[in-house]
């Protein structure tokens, strides 16, 4: 899977994103590592507040002004993006890494036609293109995301489109410069179930066409199962378990992963389920001293409250951060 | 602020005894030619039609655009202007004027006897509504054109002030043709015979006058252009004078002069006779119908202190309506010296201790200052005074309509005693706004009006003045000190005792 000669497309190492300073410092992302190979899809799973969106913003170089990348590296094809100034990131954003967001209803500027917003994305990385050329490319992009009669819709305003349509526009915008990596941050969460399926299909088809890699962020394991090659599970700013989709879905080691799997509604199997995980992700300014999942963990021992477990291998690239792993046996 | 003009100049026949310092007119032998003369103007202008003009500031412009029938000098003497000479016939009931030859209006129409007749009858015409009508109508019977350059005016009654009026607003000659042409808009399109013509009037900002190349007086005018620029107050006027944006600013108090002390490029001059500042009230109406109250107020006022504070001590405290140095001046002692004890005693006698008075306060800074001092001093003898602000432009009409009972006042000095005495103190005087009616004073003034020689008239005015000062229709306060400041390059500004500077013969060296 991994070709030792060429580096992976994206390699995140020990990334920390902090807000505030000194005693008030909080880490939204705390020492995360992540590898995305070309053409593959890496799913990131976690509840809201787990830091998965901040991770994606950090990769985009869009950490809000109040925060910063405190340490770590984000290598894109070998080049470290962490700490690059906004201006230099400008050439990479949209061009090599593109992103689509959770809320299609608000992710388009209500004052401009979608054509104009698409053109802006194209022109940002191709200053020589003529207006006509750009417009044709915008229409072509709309066609590629299966928007009917794109010649007409290109002049529509966002409020004239449905949520699913807007998400297609967002995808078109992300594809406009042929990115190597697409970060999709909960792209289907806000949509109806039928539309969700359409969008996922579309993404998969487009990935086949273009060969781009994808980071697919979601809290929905079902969606991950449908799209991801590799999966990382995040909890309170850290990766607690990572591996291939098969590793995670069939051989989960971490109690949190198991909890997530259990809380997923499964229609196909009527298995005895773990109880839904009680409580919520602790906020970054109020983390427990030891394992961050310890307060909610059914398997916790006093040791868990004393120190924070690191990732341990469980065969191949399958890693999990739990003192008590594997826990499946215990559960049984 | 606007100030309604009532410093009307009433000139008498016998201005004999009075000699005031001559203006700077004669200072330079050959005036420099050309240039623009910029004047700071504090008051607003409403109209340049002399028929309707009531704003004091308008008249300095009227004197440039128009000529008067006769004029007055700095010594109060009557001089020829449009009338080259005149005779008074029929015991002062008929005036015959011989006009200058070859004078024409700016529109090219000739100035002649018909024009004079039109001008006077225009002002007398009730449908025109000139504010001068009430003044002229009781006096003028008819106007006769004798020949194109001779006009006679027949009077209903002897009136020593007629020539004075003709040196003033009633004497400005306007073009009959232009009146017919512009109608109600004549005030914005003035046409006269004067040394300058109106070029542009940006209301509220500036008035630009250009030299009249066909002006009839030899040599004059010397300037190419005169610009009046509106200034909001004296400080800004002086500032602009200092930087050279203006050449001339006036209406300056002694305090204002402190701002330009030691500036070599600016010279200052005092107006020859100041305004007579006083307090007036209605003597036929409560509470001021009580002489004791009037006397108490007079005793309560420390006029030296007022002079010191307002005029830096440079004004003359007034003991009567007449300043010292005129032939009808008296040195009778003022019967109501500053004496708060006596004032309190008089109030007690009148049963008015702790009384409350309302003093009308026009929005002019000088009245505002004066009234606050008056209120303070009357407060010290137990009279509480409320100051009631009135917009300056509304103020005098309220005084005339007797809507105002207690107010400060100021009058400019006249060349003839009949001027002020008759209009203010005779029960028939048109500017008698106090309701003062003393038959003795009336008789004295009527008698003096029909006498010619100062020697005969002086005792009558002296007696009248004593009665008036005793009766206190006015409390005399002081004769103000007022200054003009101008660039050293300027020559020929004439500061007349009527407080209207004349700019017609101004020249400016480069």
């Amino acid at each position, binding site marked *: 899977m991994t070709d030792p000669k060429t580096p992976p497309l994206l390699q995140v190492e020990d990334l920390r994103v902090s807000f505030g300073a000194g005693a008030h410092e909080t880490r939204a992302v705390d020492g995360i590592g992540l590898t995305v190979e070309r053409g593959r899809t890496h799913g990131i799973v976690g509840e809201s507040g787990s830091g998965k969106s901040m991770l994606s913003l950090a990769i985009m170089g869009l950490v809000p002004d109040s925060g910063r990348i405190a340490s770590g590296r984000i290598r894109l094809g070998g080049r470290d993006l962490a700490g690059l100034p906004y201006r230099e990131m400008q050439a990479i954003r949209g061009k090599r890494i593109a992103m689509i967001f959770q809320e299609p209803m608000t992710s388009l500027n209500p004052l401009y036609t979608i054509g104009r917003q698409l053109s802006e994305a194209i022109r940002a990385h191709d200053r020589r293109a003529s207006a006509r050329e750009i417009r044709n490319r915008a229409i072509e992009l709309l066609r590629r995301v299966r928007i009917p009669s794109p010649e007409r819709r290109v002049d529509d305003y966002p409020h004239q489109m449905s949520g699913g349509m807007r998400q297609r526009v967002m995808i078109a915008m992300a594809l406009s410069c042929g990115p190597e990596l697409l970060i999709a941050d909960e792209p289907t969460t806000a949509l109806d179930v039928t539309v969700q399926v359409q969008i996922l299909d579309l993404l998969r088809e487009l990935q086949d066409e273009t060969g781009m890699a994808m980071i697919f962020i979601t809290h929905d394991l079902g969606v991950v199962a449908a799209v991801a090659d590799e999966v990382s599970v995040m909890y309170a700013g850290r990766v607690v378990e990572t591996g291939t989709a098969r590793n995670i879905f069939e051989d989960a080691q971490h109690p949190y992963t198991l909890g997530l799997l259990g809380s997923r509604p499964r229609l196909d199997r009527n298995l005895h389920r773990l109880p839904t995980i009680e409580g919520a992700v602790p906020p970054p300014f109020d983390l427990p001293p030891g394992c961050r999942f310890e307060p909610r963990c059914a398997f916790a021992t006093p040791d868990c409250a004393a120190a924070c477990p690191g990732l341990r291998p469980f065969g191949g690239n399958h890693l999990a951060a739990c003192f008590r792993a594997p826990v499946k046996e215990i559960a049984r | 602020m606007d100030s309604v003009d009532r410093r009307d100049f009433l000139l008498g026949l016998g201005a004999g005894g009075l000699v005031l310092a001559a203006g700077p007119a004669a200072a330079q032998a050959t005036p420099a030619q050309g240039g623009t003369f910029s004047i700071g103007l504090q008051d607003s202008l409403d109209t340049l039609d002399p028929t309707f003009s009531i704003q004091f500031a308008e008249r300095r412009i009227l004197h440039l655009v128009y000529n008067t029938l006769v004029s007055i000098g700095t010594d109060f003497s009557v001089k020829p202007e449009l009338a080259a000479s005149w005779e008074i016939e029929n015991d002062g009931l008929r005036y015959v004027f011989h006009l200058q030859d070859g004078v024409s209006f700016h529109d090219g129409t000739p100035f002649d006897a018909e024009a004079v007749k039109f001008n006077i009858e225009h002002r007398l015409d009730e449908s025109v509504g000139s504010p001068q009508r009430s003044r002229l109508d009781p006096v003028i019977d008819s106007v006769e054109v004798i020949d194109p350059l001779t006009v006679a005016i027949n009077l209903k009654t002897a009136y020593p002030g007629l020539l004075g009026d003709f040196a003033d607003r009633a004497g400005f000659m306007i073009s009959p043709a232009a009146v017919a042409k512009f109608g109600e808009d004549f005030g914005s399109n003035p046409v006269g015979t004067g040394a300058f013509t109106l070029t542009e009037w940006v209301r509220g900002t500036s008035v630009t006058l250009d030299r009249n190349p066909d002006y009839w007086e030899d040599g004059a005018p010397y300037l190419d252009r005169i610009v009046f620029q509106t200034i*909001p*107050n*004296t*400080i800004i006027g*002086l*500032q602009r004078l200092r930087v050279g944006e203006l050449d001339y600013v006036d209406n300056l108090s002694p*305090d204002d002069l*402190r*701002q330009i002390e030691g500036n070599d490029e600016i010279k200052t001059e005092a107006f020859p006779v100041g305004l007579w500042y006083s307090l007036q009230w209605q003597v036929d109406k409560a509470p001021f119908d009580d002489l004791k109250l009037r006397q108490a107020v007079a005793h309560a006022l420390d006029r030296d*202190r007022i002079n*010191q*504070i307002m005029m*830096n001590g440079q004004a003359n405290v007034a003991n009567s309506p007449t300043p010292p140095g005129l032939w009808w001046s008296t040195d009778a002692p003022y019967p109501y010296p500053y004496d708060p004890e006596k004032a309190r005693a008089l109030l007690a006698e009148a049963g008015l201790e702790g009384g409350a008075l309302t003093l009308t*306060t026009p*929005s002019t*800074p000088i009245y*505002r*200052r004066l*009234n*606050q*001092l008056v*209120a*303070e001093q009357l407060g010290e003898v137990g009279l509480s005074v*409320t*100051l*009631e*602000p009135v*917009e300056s432009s509304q103020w005098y009409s309220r005084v005339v309509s007797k809507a105002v009972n207690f107010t400060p006042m100021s009058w400019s000095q006249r060349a003839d005693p009949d001027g002020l005495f008759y209009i203010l103190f005779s029960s028939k005087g048109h500017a008698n706004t106090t309701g003062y009616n003393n038959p003795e004073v009336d008789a004295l003034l009527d008698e003096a009006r029909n006498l010619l020689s100062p020697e005969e008239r002086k005792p009558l005015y002296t007696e009248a003045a004593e009665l008036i000062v005793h009766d206190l229709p006015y409390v005399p306060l002081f004769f103000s000190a007022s200054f003009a400041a101008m660039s050293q390059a300027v020559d020929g500004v004439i500061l007349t005792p009527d407080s209207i500077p004349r700019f017609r013969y101004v020249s400016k060296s480069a």
Partner: protein
Amino acid sequence: MTAVTLRRITGLTLIAFVALAGIFAPWLSAFDPNASGYDILYPASAEHPFGTDDLGRDVFTRVLYGARISLVIGPAAALIVALIGIPIGLVAGYAHGRADQMIVQVIDLFIAIPAFVLALIVMAMIGASLPNLVFVLGLVMWPEMARLVRGQVKSVRERLYIEAADAIGCSRTRILARHIWPNIMHTIAAQLAITVSTAIFTAASLGFLGLGLPPPAADWGGMVQSGFDYLSLNPWLSIAPGCAVAMTVMGFYLLGRTID
């Protein structure tokens, strides 16, 4: 400390400063604010911190006493605004349909009239005095208050529990007093502080145009105006009362401004 708290504290400090200056004026200055003197238009000195005015009065003293006038005008005008604007706003906010529409029309009509211009006209007509000034300020400022109160009532009413209270048959006054008023009180209080600041600001502007309190009242706006003629002899004559206006206005403004 949040920005709002900081602003409130600054505002209260300024108001307290001005109020104390007004209250303790006789102790802070040995002069009578209305007593003339022979030192005309003196520049600032140890004896006269802001110099003297055109009647030889101590400007510092007059600025101190001026605080008393401003602190009467502002709150008194705000009281009138409250008495007219709040009831009308409450009624309009609670009324439905036509009644509400009509009141809103009236409020909108009044709001269309520029407040300052209206104040100018009315002051010129009825003449300057303290009660007239307060009346005029109240007259021109109530529509803003009425509009605010109406909007607040409407938004609180939209919340479900009022409908519920309606449904269980609470009387309207009871609903207003128990449910609506506590929710809008704070906004109204803040608006009143703003009203005080606007009133003082407007009164000073009228005074500057010569339509304020008649002399010799130590009216800040009037002092600025009469000092204008002597800016080069003693600039404090205008600047000191002008700064006093700014301080007081700012005090109430900071107190009332709850948004960023």
